[in-house]
């Protein structure tokens, strides 16, 4: 096996410190673990215990202010895109929480979201990451899903996608021209909900009309997934 170069070793050490510090800034669960078992957290991030002094004291008001500010920004943007979903989740016991999302691997993984409408690639917003994460956590495309939640989440995400389509956008968003549709109940073929790119919401019951939707180029929201985005080159 080839020995890592000095730069690779340096970057590897820095990468682990970067991952830990950023996780501590966002995730309350990691913060709690850090306060009780810092050495275990260091170990989980592949760092030796003598690196603990690189991490600031997370009990200070300064650290808390920065941490709260960062979390609030993400929470606000998600709440703005998913207001009805947020209310629904807040009043449903055992629902996934915002903390669950912000501590999840999906939040930190740019490839778990869509390419940004500005053309800079995936992972530059948190709305699509949240949608795919929540869809998976609450099994929104399964037969026994909460239909009311499904309808709220899909309507709000489709609205967000149409917003992105209606402003100057990355070609990825061209597929949302005309609008998006989804079956109201994953167990049944109809009715189908259609949100047009002019924000008109239709409920379609006619089988012939429903069959025409993909043929005229409309997108099934259940088929929208984070694309297999290639790894981009870096100036290393």
């Amino acid at each position, binding site marked *: 096996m080839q020995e890592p170069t000095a730069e690779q070793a340096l970057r590897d050490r820095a990468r682990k410190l970067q991952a830990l510090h950023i996780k501590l800034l966002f995730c309350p669960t990691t913060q709690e673990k850090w306060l009780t078992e810092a050495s275990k957290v260091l170990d989980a991030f592949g760092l030796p215990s003598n690196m603990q002094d*690189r991490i600031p004291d997370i009990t200070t008001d300064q650290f808390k202010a920065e941490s709260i500010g960062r979390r609030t920004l993400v929470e606000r943007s998600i709440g703005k895109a998913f207001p009805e979903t947020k209310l629904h989740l807040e009043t449903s016991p055992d629902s996934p929480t915002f903390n669950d999302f912000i501590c999840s691997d999906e939040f930190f993984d740019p490839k778990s979201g869509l390419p940004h409408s500005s053309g800079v690639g995936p992972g530059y917003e948190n709305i699509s990451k949240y949608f795919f994460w929540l869809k998976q956590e609450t099994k929104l495309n399964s037969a026994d899903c909460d239909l009311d939640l499904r309808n709220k989440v899909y309507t709000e995400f489709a609205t967000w996608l149409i917003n992105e389509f209606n402003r100057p956008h990355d070609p990825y968003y061209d597929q949302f021209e005309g609008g998006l549709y989804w079956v109201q109940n994953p167990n049944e073929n109809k009715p189908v909900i259609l949100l047009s790119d002019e924000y008109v919401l239709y409920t379609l019951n006619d089988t012939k009309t429903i069959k025409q939707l993909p043929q005229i180029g409309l997108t099934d929201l259940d088929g929208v997934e984070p694309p297999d985005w290639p790894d981009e080159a870096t100036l290393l």
Partner: protein
Amino acid sequence: MDLRVGVRWDDPAQNERIHRAQEQCLIDYIEVNYPIPFGSNPHGLDIPVLAHTSSNPTCSAEGVNLNIARRIKEAADETNSPWIGEHLSWLGTAPTGSLGYQINPLFTDEIAAVTALNVSRLKEYYDRPIALELGPIYIQSTGYESEMHFLGSVANEVDTKVILDVTHWQIGNRNLERPIDYGLEAIDPSRIIELHIAGMRLGSDQRFWHDAHELLPDAEVLSIASKLIEDLPALEAVTFEHSPIASEEDFFVGLRQINDLTGNRRSRTAA
């Protein structure tokens, strides 16, 4: 060198007010924050451009995304920007993407070494000078005496210029309960080529200060900027950062305040 005054450009919604500011000889350039929105064309304003970006995580162990760097290089080449402004920051933990607004790195030896490598490669790639800038600070440095010492050290090592964001600097000093002038001595004054000036606000906790481009610069920031304009030997540009959604009246008030600070050092080149 004559001093120039400019404004940050983020959005086409600013074009009209910027055009009027140019007509009134209040600005000499726009500082465009790349990458810019699809379909926008600040270069069409026919006003000199300083290239800037908040989208390169120059302190990241993952390096800098070539797709983003290429967009910035192309814009800087097209506009012949005299330097490119870059932030000392992380954006997340992956080679691409951003978790929100820029994340201050850990100010440690490892991160300084990685930053020096990243910035030297960017500088070579751009084939153009780089000016480094810090964000607003909340957390005490764990490796260097302060973030200002980290900036000064990296700038010296890679031989870059420095953008001193007076507002960010003062936010850091207030949040960490340091004297007003703390940290300036850590930066070689001959490297400071540009000042950024913007508003700041006290948070609802009545304790911590935050960047607030929707507000006008406060009196203390203007007073400090005035002295810096007098004292800094290599200063070439003063950029007013004002939100596209903030009032146009405030935009012109802020620009006139900054013009008043520059006195005879500014050569009015606008039409």
